[in-house]
C-alpha cells in the first residue's frame, strides 16, 4: 500500500486513467472488515450507496458491542463491583476516543447523546432557553437538515426569536456576503451544517465562525456528515458546539456526541433530569453533577458508547486524511460518469463538497429510479432527505442520492451507472 496522500479537491489523473487518490486505500481489503457487504440483493451483489443515511459496521464495532454484553455488562458510575468498573472504564474510554478524534481540549466537554438530532435539540433547548429573548435572531442556512430547523422554530414560537436563513447559489454554495449582512446585534447564535447531506456542500466553517465571533456570537456545527468523512478538529474549526451521530460513522445507532466549550456547557441548565446528572438531591434542592454527567441523565447507551469508541479506533487505524482523499477521488470518478449520462442533472455541484451524488432525471421520478436501482442491487436514497427547503430551492420534489464511503469502489459507481442506463431503457 502506498503512503502517498493526495490533497482532496485537486483533480488529476494518474497513468491508469483513474483520478489521483484512488490508490490511497485498498477498498477490497477494507471490505473484508464489513461482513454485511458480502451479500446479494435481488440476485445481484449488494452495492451500498446510502452511506449518508447510515453506514455499515465493521467487525471491530460489532465485536466491541457483543464483547460488552458477553463479558462486561453492568451499569456505569454506580457500583464498586468489577463488572461495573469494567463497563465504566470502557464507556469512558469511548468518550476519550471521541475527544481525541475531534481534538477537543477536554473529555468532559464530550457529552454522549442519541445522535445529531439530540445534540441540536439539547443546545437549542438548553442554551436557547437560557440566553434567548424575544426579538433575538438565530442564523441557519438554506441547506439544513430538518433537525437543525425545527428545534429553532419551536423556540421561535415559545420565545419569539426569529430564524434567518442564508441562501445558496445554484451550485449549492452559501452566499457568504448575505451571511455577513445577516449578522447583527440581535443575532444570538449561528447554527450551520458542516457538510450538507442533500447536496454534499462543505461549508466554510472557520470563515463563518470568525465573522460570528467578531460580534461575540456563538456557532453550533451539525457535523453529522463531516466527522465520518474528513478530519474534523473542533479547535481548528473554532466552533463553540459540534454534534454528530455514531451510526453515520460506522458505529451503532442510538449514540452520538455533542462537544461544547466547557464554560458554555457549565452555564447551561440541564436538558433532561433524573439519575446520573445529580450530585445531591433533597426535596428542597438539587445540586447538579459536573460535566459531562450534568447532561447525561439516566442510564446511558453503554453498549453504544463502547461501539462508538471502537468505530473511532477503527477509523483512526485507517486515517481520516486517507479516507477523505480516497472518497474525494471516488467522488470525482462518479461525478464524471454521471455528467456523461444525458438526462441526468446533478444537484449540488459545489467546489468544496463531500461524497454525495444527488441527481434528478427528467425522464423518471425518483421513486421509479429507486425501484429499478434496487432491482439491480444498488441501494440509494430517494426522497427529500429531510431537507425539503433544498428541494424547493431547485423546484423538484425529490432527488436520487448516492452517497459514498471508503468501502465503495469504482465498480460500485459503474454498477450505479449501469442501473441508470436501465432506467433510461425503461423510461427514456
Amino acid at each position, binding site marked *: 500500500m502506498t503512503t502517498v496522500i493526495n490533497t482532496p479537491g485537486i483533480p488529476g489523473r494518474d497513468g491508469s486513467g483513474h483520478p489521483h487518490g484512488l490508490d490511497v486505500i485498498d477498498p477490497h481489503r477494507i471490505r473484508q472488515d464489513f461482513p454485511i457487504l458480502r451479500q446479494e440483493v*435481488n440476485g445481484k451483489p449488494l452495492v451500498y450507496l446510502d452511506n449518508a443515511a447510515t453506514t455499515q459496521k465493521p467487525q471491530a464495532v460489532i465485536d466491541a458491542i457483543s464483547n460488552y454484553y458477553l463479558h462486561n455488562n453492568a451499569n456505569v458510575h454506580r457500583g464498586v463491583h468489577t463488572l461495573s468498573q469494567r463497563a465504566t472504564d470502557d464507556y469512558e474510554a469511548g468518550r476519550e476516543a471521541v475527544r481525541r478524534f475531534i481534538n477537543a481540549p477536554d473529555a468532559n466537554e464530550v457529552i454522549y447523546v442519541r445522535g445529531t438530532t439530540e445534540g441540536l435539540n439539547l443546545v437549542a433547548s438548553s442554551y436557547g432557553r437560557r440566553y434567548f429573548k424575544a426579538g433575538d435572531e438565530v442564523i441557519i442556512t438554506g441547506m439544513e437538515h430538518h433537525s437543525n430547523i425545527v428545534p429553532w422554530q419551536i423556540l421561535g414560537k415559545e420565545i419569539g426569536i426569529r430564524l434567518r436563513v442564508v441562501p445558496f447559489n445554484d451550485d449549492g454554495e452559501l452566499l457568504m456576503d448575505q451571511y455577513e449582512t445577516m449578522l447583527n446585534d440581535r443575532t444570538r447564535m449561528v447554527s450551520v451544517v458542516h457538510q450538507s447531506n442533500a447536496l454534499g456542500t462543505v461549508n466554510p466553517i472557520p470563515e463563518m465562525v470568525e465573522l460570528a465571533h467578531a460580534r461575540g456570537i456563538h456557532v453550533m456545527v451539525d457535523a453529522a456528515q463531516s466527522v465520518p468523512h474528513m478530519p474534523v478538529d473542533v479547535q481548528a474549526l473554532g466552533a463553540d458546539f459540534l454534534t454528530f451521530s455514531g451510526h453515520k460513522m460506522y458505529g451503532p445507532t442510538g449514540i452520538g456526541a455533542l462537544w461544547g466549550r466547557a464554560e458554555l456547557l457549565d452555564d447551561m441548565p440541564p436538558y433532561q433530569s433524573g439519575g446520573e446528572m445529580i450530585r445531591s438531591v433533597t426535596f428542597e434542592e438539587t445540586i447538579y453533577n459536573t460535566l459531562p454527567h450534568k447532561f447525561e441523565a439516566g442510564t446511558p447507551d453503554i453498549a453504544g458508547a463502547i461501539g462508538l469508541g471502537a468505530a473511532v479506533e477503527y477509523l483512526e487505524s485507517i486515517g481520516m486524511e486517507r479516507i477523505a482523499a480516497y472518497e474525494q477521488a471516488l467522488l470525482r470518478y462518479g461525478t464524471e460518469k454521471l455528467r456523461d449520462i444525458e438526462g441526468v442533472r446533478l444537484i449540488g455541484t459545489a467546489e468544496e463538497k463531500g461524497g454525495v451524488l444527488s441527481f434528478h432525471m427528467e425522464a*423518471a*421520478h*425518483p*421513486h*421509479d429510479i429507486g*425501484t*429499478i436501482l*434496487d*432491482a*439491480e442491487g444498488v441501494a440509494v436514497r*430517494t*426522497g*427529500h432527505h429531510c431537507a425539503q427547503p433544498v*428541494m424547493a430551492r431547485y423546484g423538484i*420534489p*425529490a432527488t436520487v442520492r448516492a452517497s459514498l464511503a471508503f468501502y465503495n469502489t469504482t465498480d460500485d459507481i459503474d454498477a450505479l451507472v449501469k442501473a441508470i442506463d*436501465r432506467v433510461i431503457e*425503461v*423510461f427514456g
Partner: protein
Amino acid sequence: MASLPDNPDALYGDVIMEHYRSPRHRRRLERPDAEAEEFNPFCGDRANLQLQLAKAASKVAVIAGVSAVAEGCSIIQASASLLADGVHGRTVDEASDLSQLFRDLMQGKPLPPVALEELGELSALEVVRQYPVRVKCALLPWVALEEGLRRLNRR
C-alpha cells in the same frame, strides 16, 4: 417479505406504462360536484380528483364526469388514470365497491375471478404488491376518491 420478480421490469408493464405516458381524464371539470386532494409529504406525490354526477330519467345518478390529476411517479399516475377510467359511468355505491376491491387487491386478499373481472384493467396494478414501498403510491388517488365519494354522499 416478498422478493422481487425475476424480471426487474415487471413493474413497468404495458398497461402501467401506457397509462403513465398518456393518462386519461386529466382535463379539469368546470362544475365538479365534489373535489378531493391527497398529498404524501414524504415524496411530494399528489393526487387531485374531481367528480360530477348526472341523473338519467328515473335512474340513480352516475359519475358522468371525472378528472384525475396526479403528480409523482409512474405508479401514482397510472393508478389515477386507471381509477378515472374505472369509476366513469358508475354510481357512487359502485365506485365505493370498486375502491374496496382495489384496496383488497393491494393488500393481497385473495379475490374471486369475478372480482378480478370487475377490476378489469386495474388488475394490472396487482404487480405493485411485490414492491411493498410502492403500494402507497398506487393507493393515494383512491384515498382521494374515497374522500370525494364521501363528499358526494354528504351533499
